[in-house]
């Protein structure tokens, strides 16, 4: 048995070397079975095909072009922010000029609002509205108007910068939330699978359980003994494919109970039909709490 294991390990090591491009020779002391198996592995390696240089270059050019387009989109957003910054700097720092600028902005905004409401097309009431606006302008503190103007400018710049930061060159937001709300009970322990959130590169599963005599801990760092070790573990399978462990759950302590969060660290294909999600354990309790989730609804 140990000999077989050693042989298996050596075989795998030799394959790794073969794939790394090393010259591997198998000694005559090896069994016929081993040698022919390794020869076959060599055949598998040699029969592989490589992408043509033309395809390789064309795809690379296409991808880099796409990358450039994305970069330009981001730069456009930054430029938009810079224009506002430029406009803000146009106003001299002198209080007189700033007051005048603020007044002008308020007048322009008021005229703009009136224009949009169609007041200029109706003669009646126009004079009255103009008077009201004038009154507002006269009574409004010029400094407040300036601050409002600066606020708008700052907001625009911050928004553009935030957008630049938050929109990585290549990002994709959450694509779908599947509300599940299925409850399974095993040995009197009920766990509700609440929902699945599908992201571009992973999915997150939310489950809920309320342990007996649960009260929300005030300090998650020092949990009462009844809540210690209540980490859940789970497995999943997509369309009957391989069963994969999610690893232990992350826990959120809520007023009503404990929320367990599991991560499916793979991309679920848009065409995937069904997710089988099995909570295999909750602390020392063994499930399975099994949920079948349709991905196509």
């Amino acid at each position, binding site marked *: 048995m140990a000999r077989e294991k050693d042989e*298996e*390990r050596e*075989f*795998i090591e030799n*394959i*790794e070397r073969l*794939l790394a491009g090393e010259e591997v020779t198998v000694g005559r002391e090896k069994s016929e*079975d081993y040698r*022919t*198996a390794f020869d*076959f*592995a060599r*055949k*598998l*390696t040699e*029969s*592989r*095909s*490589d*992408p043509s240089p033309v*395809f*390789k270059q064309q*795809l*690379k050019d*296409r*991808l*880099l072009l*796409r*990358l450039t387009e994305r*970069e330009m989109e*981001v*730069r456009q957003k*930054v430029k938009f922010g810079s224009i506002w910054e430029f406009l803000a700097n146009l106003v001299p720092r002198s209080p007189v000029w700033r007051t005048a600028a603020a007044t002008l902005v308020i007048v322009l905004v008021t005229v703009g609002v009136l224009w949009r409401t169609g007041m200029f097309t109706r003669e009646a009431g126009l004079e009255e509205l103009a008077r009201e606006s004038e009154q507002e302008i006269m009574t409004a503190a010029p400094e407040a108007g300036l601050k409002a103007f600066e606020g708008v400018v700052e907001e625009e710049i911050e928004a553009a910068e935030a957008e*630049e930061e938050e929109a*990585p*060159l*290549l*990002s*994709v937001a959450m694509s779908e939330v599947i509300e599940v709300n299925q409850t399974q009970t095993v040995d009197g322990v009920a766990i509700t699978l609440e929902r699945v959130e599908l*992201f*571009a*590169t*992973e999915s997150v599963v939310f489950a809920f359980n309320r342990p007996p005599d649960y009260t929300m801990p005030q300090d998650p760092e020092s949990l009462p003994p009844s809540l210690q070790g209540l980490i859940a573990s789970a*497995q999943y399978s997509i369309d009957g494919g*391989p*069963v*994969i*462990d999610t690893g232990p759950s992350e826990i959120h302590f809520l007023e009503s109970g404990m929320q367990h969060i599991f991560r499916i*660290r*793979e*991309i679920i*294909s*848009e*065409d995937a039909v069904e997710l089988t999600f099995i909570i295999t354990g909750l602390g020392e309790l063994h499930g399975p709490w099994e949920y079948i989730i349709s991905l196509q609804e």
Partner: protein
Amino acid sequence: MSTVRENESARKTFAELYEEYLPRVYRYINYRINDTQITEDLTSTVFEKALTNFGKYSKDKASFSTWIFSISRNVVIDYYRAQGRRQTVSLDETTELASRDLSPEEELLKKEEREKLQVYLMKLPQDEQEIIRLKFGAELNNRQIARMLGLSESNIGTRLYRSIRKLRDVFQESENG
């Protein structure tokens, strides 16, 4: 300025990963679909998806290999679903395909052998087929394969050794028979 530097860095990183992974992704797909045009199309799709989602990739969560071959697997699965047929190729069909190929003789022989291997590979259980593709196509190590398939690393070693011997036997039987 920082945006420019970030862009240059992202571009450089992506270009390096492209150089390293293009042949591996191509071979992995070609192991599943022995058609150059479709392999190229699907390889392009994989890298376009990778480019789109690159900002969301976190090396703390998974190695780049695991990530890109997860994309590759899904792209192939999607392709077969869209085709609405099972992933099977008969030997007659592959011979016919080969006979239509106008490449030089050596290339033709290599292609024929690859097609035969693909046909015999499909006689193995699905998980064993996938282990062979991930090993010889994607060139993943046993730990990475184990992580992708949800199996233990030692289990992958055992299955790989067994699968290669099985495939050899099927191949020899058909050659002799």
